[in-house]
């Protein structure tokens, strides 16, 4: 009955997030807050030579925001900052309801499962929280500086 976004993958990322921990030596951290629901997240990155070597988060929120953050950290780990920017932009377009090509959806890997959130406007902000935070970090250019 309660199918759609509450997929097995989402529930697994929510229940057992691999990337939810305090990072030892991040090169950048940033707080993300969802004022309408009180969800809070701190995103930490370790960027070396333009590559995201490590991504992790802490905080609290609903299953959608937690799973989305975990999927995101999984996706961007090992990617260049440039590629992470592209993926972030793809994800944010997707949850806004823009049509992505199948290749683009493939690039988003498991995070593509959140596509249907675009039909639940009240929950889009939950899915976006981590990605918006990452977008701000990458936009500022801070994590690239050693």
């Amino acid at each position, binding site marked *: *009955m*309660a*199918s*759609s*976004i*509450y997929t097995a993958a989402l*529930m697994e990322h929510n229940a057992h997030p691999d990337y939810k921990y305090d990072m030892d030596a991040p090169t950048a951290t940033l707080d993300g807050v969802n004022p*309408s*629901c*009180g*969800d809070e997240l701190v995103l930490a990155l370790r960027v070396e030579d333009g590559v995201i070597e490590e991504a992790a988060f802490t905080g*609290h*929120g*609903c*299953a*959608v925001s937690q799973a989305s953050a975990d999927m995101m950290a999984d996706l961007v780990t090992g990617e260049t900052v440039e590629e992470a920017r592209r993926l972030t932009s793809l994800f944010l377009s997707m949850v806004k309801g823009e049509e992505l090509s199948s290749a683009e959806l493939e690039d988003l890997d498991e995070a593509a499962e959140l596509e249907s959130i675009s039909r*639940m406007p*009240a*929950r889009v902000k*939950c899915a976006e929280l981590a990605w918006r935070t990452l977008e701000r970090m990458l936009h500022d250019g801070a994590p690239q500086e050693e």
Partner: protein
Amino acid sequence: MSTVLESTKAAPSGAALKEGASPQGNASHRRGAAPQETAVLQEDAATLGKTACAIADAAAAAAGSSATVRPTDPADIAASPFKRDFPLLANHPELAFLDSAATAQRPKTVLDAQRRFYEDMNANALRGLYRLSVEATEAIEVARERVARFIGAPSARDVVLVRNASEALNLVAKAFAPTVLGPGDEVCITIMEHHSNLIPWQQACQAAGARLVYLYPDEQGVIQPEEMDAKVGPRTKIVAAAHVSNVLGIENPIAELGRRVHAHGGYLVVDGAQSVPHMKVDVQALDCDFFAFSAHKAFGPFGMGVLWGKHELLEAMPPFLTGGEMIDSVTEQDAQWAPVPEKFEAGTQDAAGIYATAAAIAYMEAVGRDVIERRERALVRDCMEKLAELPYVHVIGHPDPDQHHGVISFNVEGIHPHDVASILDMQNVAIRAGHHCAQPLLAWLGQESCCRASYAFYNDEADTDALVEGLKTVWRTFNGE
């Protein structure tokens, strides 16, 4: 124009009934109403004049539509006979609407009254000298009378019509508070205030150099006498409190707070947004100085609020908003204010909304405040008993259902309220999840957010059963069988 006069001459069988829930002529004769109700309707027609007819019609239609199927026992919460009075509920029989504390549904009579105003009476009130404008003005004044009677106000002249409870409370905090607050003074509110009765006092205190003091309840949500004694003292100039909490549903000890603050020469402001839809309110019995509520939570239209205040206080206060229709005279450099309440009603009023508000009150009175209270008690009791059978659901607040006044806040163990609400939504159960505009309360409770199911008298057992089944699905979604 002529249709206005013709259709309203023969009371009470006007246009509202043509499209109303009671289509056949004079409802008060047809439906065999209880003597008390008939008396109310006759009084309306006789004393409130011809523009009151739509309001009387609304009352008749409401009584007519529900009387024929009204359960002999108001506490009978099997299939609700009232849902058919509410077009949204009638159009969505699959929906379990349990968010009436956020905004209630409106009965057809209210929608009809709004429409009737625009079709038969629409003109700018107060301004025009032609008959239609006079009618519009009269409609506002009739509605004001109705509101006054509804809340036990001694005079309709002390009923200020605003946009919502927030605006009413801001009016008091911005226009009244500065006249009594100084450095070192205190404003005392409860930790369970909605932001609309909290931020205005933060602002007023900051502006005056005063201190904002909080009353905290015990673990069941009750503010104890010792707490009131400790917090309300000689420095307290204003106590502002929710009559009923929008999260805990508990009724605060308003009269006791009033006694204490008045003993020290201070003033009592009551936020009635969550009490007016559920219980009989009498501002004189409460002995408050100001009382605010919103129409949209009480089956009326959006954008309508009421501030009642003691006459001498309203008289002495400066205006809040200034502009058209709130003046006696204006010169290049100065202005003289109109008398209360127009002094506080700058700009064009939502006359149709005011008229529809009166229809909502008429509807509530026709249903009966006692019936409303008894149904809600039965609904809340039933819900809390059923929730108690789900070990993973934890109700917040008082264990006694009678202390909840239509509101049941809860959490599902280990599952975020937004996920709960989303999965319930997939099963056509509408509840609220979040901080409910009461962040300091939730912080004090040690919660980030919570779920809230809120009832009105139109709900029934099926709504609760849908909630309970929905919660089982929520649990299974996260935890398997």
